[in-house]
């Protein structure tokens, strides 16, 4: 009973302390990302790398058309530039004069993730690494989390894809470090948790801290233009931390008070106060 009460108070203090720190809890790590949309060419390499690394099933034209695809990392393409004030001639031009806008969209690993509180069986929760994790074994498929995700980056196994997606001998390519999800389970980007764990294990074996850049997500590693940065936000020296600082974006806020509002860093749907951990850098165009 005493330990129970102790836990209760600990929970409260953690919460209040975390709030002052801008986060919500005290984490060991806080893995975060920076994506430079001016460098992103929308070439899909990251997406395909994700399929290869994370045992993502291909679903075929019919199911893709039914919006049942499993692309954890999807490259969205837009033709409009809402907040770029164009020269009068271009505004109504009948040609796509500024090219297209590409947006790599994967789970934003919100610190205040709307998907977490609504899961009836606690199958999605926050790890001490600051990751928004999905426990496939625990998931019963109520799909509430996906309904509550403003980014629509949670993907549900509407079918068993094993036979169609990996006909023999393709199953030999499956990554044994992570599971193949069966029907009825929700899944999403994990920031390549298997790589994170591998790195932290190595670090532990060698009795040292994880070095910045030691962990590379599959998308980051393959990105031909190096538009993606990944690292530990709590590590003052990490490139990601530096980038967030340079762009004057802080966790735990739903509006950033930047001294220089022209800095490119922004978070998508920040106003929803879900506290995402992916920092996007604005795309640039000659006007």
């Amino acid at each position: 009973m005493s330990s129970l009460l102790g836990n209760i108070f600990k929970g409260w203090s953690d919460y209040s302390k975390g709030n002052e720190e801008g986060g919500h809890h005290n984490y060991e790590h806080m893995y975060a990302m920076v994506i430079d949309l001016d460098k992103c060419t929308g070439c899909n390499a990251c997406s395909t790398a994700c399929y290869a690394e994370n045992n993502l099933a291909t679903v075929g034209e019919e199911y893709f058309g039914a919006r049942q695809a499993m692309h954890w990392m999807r490259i969205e393409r837009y033709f409009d530039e809402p907040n770029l004030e164009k020269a009068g001639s271009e505004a109504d031009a009948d040609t796509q004069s500024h090219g297209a806008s590409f947006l790599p969209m994967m789970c934003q690993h919100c610190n205040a993730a709307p998907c977490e509180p609504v899961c009836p069986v606690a199958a999605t929760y926050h790890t001490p690494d600051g990751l928004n994790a999905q426990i496939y074994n625990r998931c019963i498929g109520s799909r509430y989390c996906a309904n509550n995700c403003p980014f629509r980056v949670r993907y549900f196994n509407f079918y068993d894809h094993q036979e169609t997606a990996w006909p023999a001998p393709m199953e030999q390519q499956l990554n044994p470090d992570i599971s193949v999800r069966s029907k009825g389970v929700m899944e999403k980007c994990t920031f390549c948790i298997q790589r994170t764990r591998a790195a932290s294990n190595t670090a532990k074996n060698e009795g040292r801290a994880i070095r910045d850049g030691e962990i590379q997500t599959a998308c980051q590693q393959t990105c031909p233009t190096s538009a993606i940065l990944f690292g530990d936000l709590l590590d003052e020296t990490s490139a990601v931390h530096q980038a967030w600082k340079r762009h004057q974006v802080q966790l735990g806020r739903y509006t950033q008070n930047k001294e220089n509002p022209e800095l490119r860093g922004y978070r998508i749907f920040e106003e929803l106060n879900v506290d995402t951990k992916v920092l996007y850098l604005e795309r640039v165009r000659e006007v």
Partner: protein
Amino acid sequence: MSDQKHLTQEQTKDIDENIAWASINADVLRSMENPRRGYWVAMAVSVCLFGIMIYAEVYQYMYGMGAALLNTSHMWDLYISTFVFWIGMSHSGTLLSAILHLVHADWRKPIYRFAEAMTTFSLMTAGIFPVIHLGRVWNFYWVMPYMTDRGLWPNFRSPLIWDAFAITAYLTSSVLFLYIGMIPDLAICRDNAKGWRKTLYSWLSLGWRGDDRQWRNFRFTYLMIACFLIPLAVSVHSIVSMDFAMSIMPGWHVTTFPPYFVAGALYSGCAAIITLFILLRYFFKFEHYMTFPILDKVCKLTFVIAMVWTYLNLVEFASVWYGHDIPSKEVLIAKATGPYSPFFWGMMTFGSVLPFSLLFKWVRRNMYVLFFASIFLNVGMWLERWMIVTPTLSLGYHPQAFNVMWPGWTEWAMVGGSFGWFGMLFLIFVKVFPCVSMYEVKEMVFHRKRTIYDDVDEMMTLHSGVPGPKAQTQNSGGA
């Protein structure tokens, strides 16, 4: 029962107080005997519908949730909306029984029994849907509040868990409410039954002898549970509404949802009562008990609730419209103009315009018109639930969510099957249990008679020493 005037549409009294107590027993007990052909037809239809539901569920189990054509934008669809619909239906019984009981509206007495039965069975129907809509239905029991060997609990923050708690509490309480209210009648059945029914009723009536002690405790118990049930019923549907209101989705994250849902629930419940009222009166010849004046009162009640519901509807629209949340506004506009707009306007017509017909006395007194009216009211309420779930999911914050989706055959099969299941349960109920509360009709008759005759006595003794009718009918206590 000298004249049949009270059975016609001009009837003014809720019930003929001269009706003999013995005949009350007789009529009700008769309704529980040897089913006629119509009953078997109805039962067959219900069983078929339910069979289709079973088949659909098995198919979906083998094939995956994709069978329902759900997709990344539309993770929920008809299962959830029909779930909400049935939960709503379940509110009628409690409303009539508990609230009217507390306010001593005795015209509830002939009709509350089947209303409470409806509550129970609607809940049992509603309970099916959260389960069959699970991706891994075989793990549904993981939402129970127990600690697994891995130290996992369910997530008490999830409105779905609140649902589980609320529905469990509500189902238990309403079953008990129904059962306790039925004990004296079960005693009556026991006294008149033979064979297995005798055994059944002997067990169920718990040895009810009609002692003053039993009646006294009975009165308090019934009162207490009624008091518990009213806040419970309100909380249940507000919790159901929180499945949506607690999310951050535009179109769901609405403050007025709890009262709105409760109103909608009472609304559809009353409509359903009208439907069943008419059916029972027609098939079981309950003209003496389910009379037009009572139907009239139910209709008026329905109209009032319909107006409340309409008002809350408009409030919701207005608050979105004058708010500055663009995505929510998009959802609202899309509902009215988008691909789902026919159903939206259908809902508004059936839910807000059709009730005005209840203002006309000839409608309130015409069983046939009223029957179809009540059906369409409920169609409107079902559409409302669908319009809450699906059009909202067809939009959202992120354009990736933009998608129009129509339910798959399994979903329709489940929706139809749920009515089959409900019908099955209800049909069994009316043949096993008295669907009119005999003892309470007796009380009603007794009280009304007394009050009337007391007044008359006073008048007569006031004007002349002649003893009033009470003295004359001294010996006609019952038969």
